[in-house]
């Protein structure tokens, strides 16, 4: 029984954190049309920086090395992790958001991801190299040690609440004038520029907000698991988030949620326990990645708007004054007077 309870809790936490990743990417891509091809690096950024802020100084005699080791309390370390991933987003934005084609940004995100991945693995002084960080201090550490299931359920509540907060935030942003500017930039950046908006600033906001949110998910991930190594944030993970967003519906936060449920939970968990093929131990994970990649491509082909397309904005409207109804326009002109060109 307790095994099942623990498992259910883990699934819920997975769902909530992936949903946070997807919401972050949705603000970047779904709102502002920013191609972030290394979503998962921001997760790692949040996680690693939380870890090195919360852990005591590295103990060289254990052959474990990492920077900082400030031993801060976990709430402060969480903030540090989130700020770090937001800062990475800001730096990338500085390099690639100014008057460049969207491919450049995609290239810079991908390059940054490859670089940081290699760096954190090859250089074991940063985050302990390929071995990664483990025994990372968790919130409610004593509960986690003595009563793992209780900890898991506490964490379900925490991550659930954080997810709801992010969700609320994303929705507030979506329906605001700022969110509208972001979506207009997604449609045609030059035109928004020509109407006097500082599109660089707006895109930078979307970039940093999205990165920060993904970082929040990263902090939660490492708090729950207590460990992270480069194997936990390969490019394949970035695709899971992209697939979730594209399948669910870019620009629609409920769609993002549905997508994370379908892809990150149902598909990923559903295929996790397929037995290994002895002769080819990588076959199952490889096939899983192939399916995820195909999901990305096929959803663009068959249903680019996703299962739940973006909703049309609704506004509070007073009826037009009567005097207009009679004049040109009103309800008839647009039908009768306009020709196709």
């Amino acid at each position, binding site marked *: 029984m307790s095994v099942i309870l623990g498992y259910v809790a883990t699934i819920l936490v997975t769902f909530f954190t992936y949903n946070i990743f997807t919401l972050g990417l949705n603000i970047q891509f779904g709102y502002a049309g920013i191609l972030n091809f290394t979503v998962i690096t921001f997760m790692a950024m949040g996680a690693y920086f939380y870890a090195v802020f919360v852990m005591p100084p590295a103990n060289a005699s254990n052959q474990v090395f990492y920077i900082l080791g400030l031993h801060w309390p976990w709430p402060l370390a969480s903030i540090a992790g989130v700020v770090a991933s937001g800062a990475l987003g800001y730096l990338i934005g500085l390099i690639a958001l100014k008057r460049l084609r969207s491919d450049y940004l995609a290239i810079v995100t991908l390059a940054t991801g490859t670089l940081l991945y290699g760096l954190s693995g090859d250089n074991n002084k940063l985050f302990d190299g390929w071995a990664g960080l483990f025994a990372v201090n968790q919130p409610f550490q004593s509960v986690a040690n003595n009563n793992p299931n209780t900890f898991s359920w506490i964490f379900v509540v925490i991550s659930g609440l954080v997810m709801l907060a992010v969700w609320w935030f994303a929705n507030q942003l979506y329906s605001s004038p700022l969110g509208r500017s972001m*979506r207009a930039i997604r*449609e045609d950046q030059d035109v928004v520029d*020509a109407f006097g908006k500082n599109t660089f600033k707006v895109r930078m906001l979307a970039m940093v907000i999205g990165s920060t949110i993904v970082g929040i998910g990263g902090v939660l991930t490492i708090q729950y698991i207590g460990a992270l190594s480069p194997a936990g944030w390969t490019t394949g993970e970035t695709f899971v988030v992209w697939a979730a967003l594209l399948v669910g519906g870019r620009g629609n936060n409920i769609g993002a949620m549905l997508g994370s449920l379908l892809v990150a939970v149902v598909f990923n968990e559903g295929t996790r326990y397929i037995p290994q093929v002895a002769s080819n131990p990588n076959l199952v994970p490889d096939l899983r990645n192939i399916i995820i990649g195909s999901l990305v491509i096929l959803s663009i082909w068959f249903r680019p708007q996703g299962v739940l397309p973006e909703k049309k904005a609704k506004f509070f409207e007073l009826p037009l004054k009567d005097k207009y109804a009679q004049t040109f326009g009103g309800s008839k002109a647009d039908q009768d007077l306009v020709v196709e060109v």
Partner: protein
Amino acid sequence: MSNVLEVNDVHVAFGGLKAIDGCSFTVEKGTITALIGPNGAGKSTMVGSIAGAVSISSGSITFDGNNISSLPTYKRAQEGLIRTYQISREFGGMSVLENLLVVRLGQSGESLINAVFRPKKSKAETNELVAEANDILNTFGLYRLRNEYASNLSGGQKRLLELSRAVMAKPKMLLLDEPMAGVTPALIEILGEHLLELNRSTGMSMLLVEHNLEVVDKICSRVVVMAVGKRLAEGTLGELRQNRDVVEAYLGGEVHERVGG
């Protein structure tokens, strides 16, 4: 009277092609001035250079007394200089109404803090903008389509949206690049009246690129003629019809058919 726009010896080249080759003209404040010329004369390029989308290699552009030649596009728009495009560039994935709402500058909900934590204030503001936008949409005959996705409009309707959106931005000066192309003759006349009415009631200056000389004749007080990247002539349409160069380069037979008669 002062000039709202002064274009001074502007040059623009695309690779080896000199699209604008030393062109100068002015637009007087509060007037509607036409910019006409044969295909490829450089009219759209001129609109782009004034708006900042195309960078000029030499010359200067003065708007409302300030040299704006080196200002980035969005700052020129913030000064009150708004353009439309010859080929409609609507925000396809947004509703017609939203296309208008997005362009108004200085909305409080454009700051992140207000957007997320003070939605009430921003909503009240948006409601007022909605009413204003609906008025404009009604004027341009798009009211009924306000909740349609802009990408679903017909070509002609997109032209109307292009205009309404520019009007929604409340510019000091409008740069209109063939706003009537692809619109039925009956509607062209009405649109011309609307532009004239807008100009008279708000004093909004306009530079109108247009091939339809009837419209030009009706609403423009002055006409600038461009050909092969240069200003060929300037004056009222009546004067220009007497100008041999202009008639040869551009007006040709067409004028006699359509306006001259």
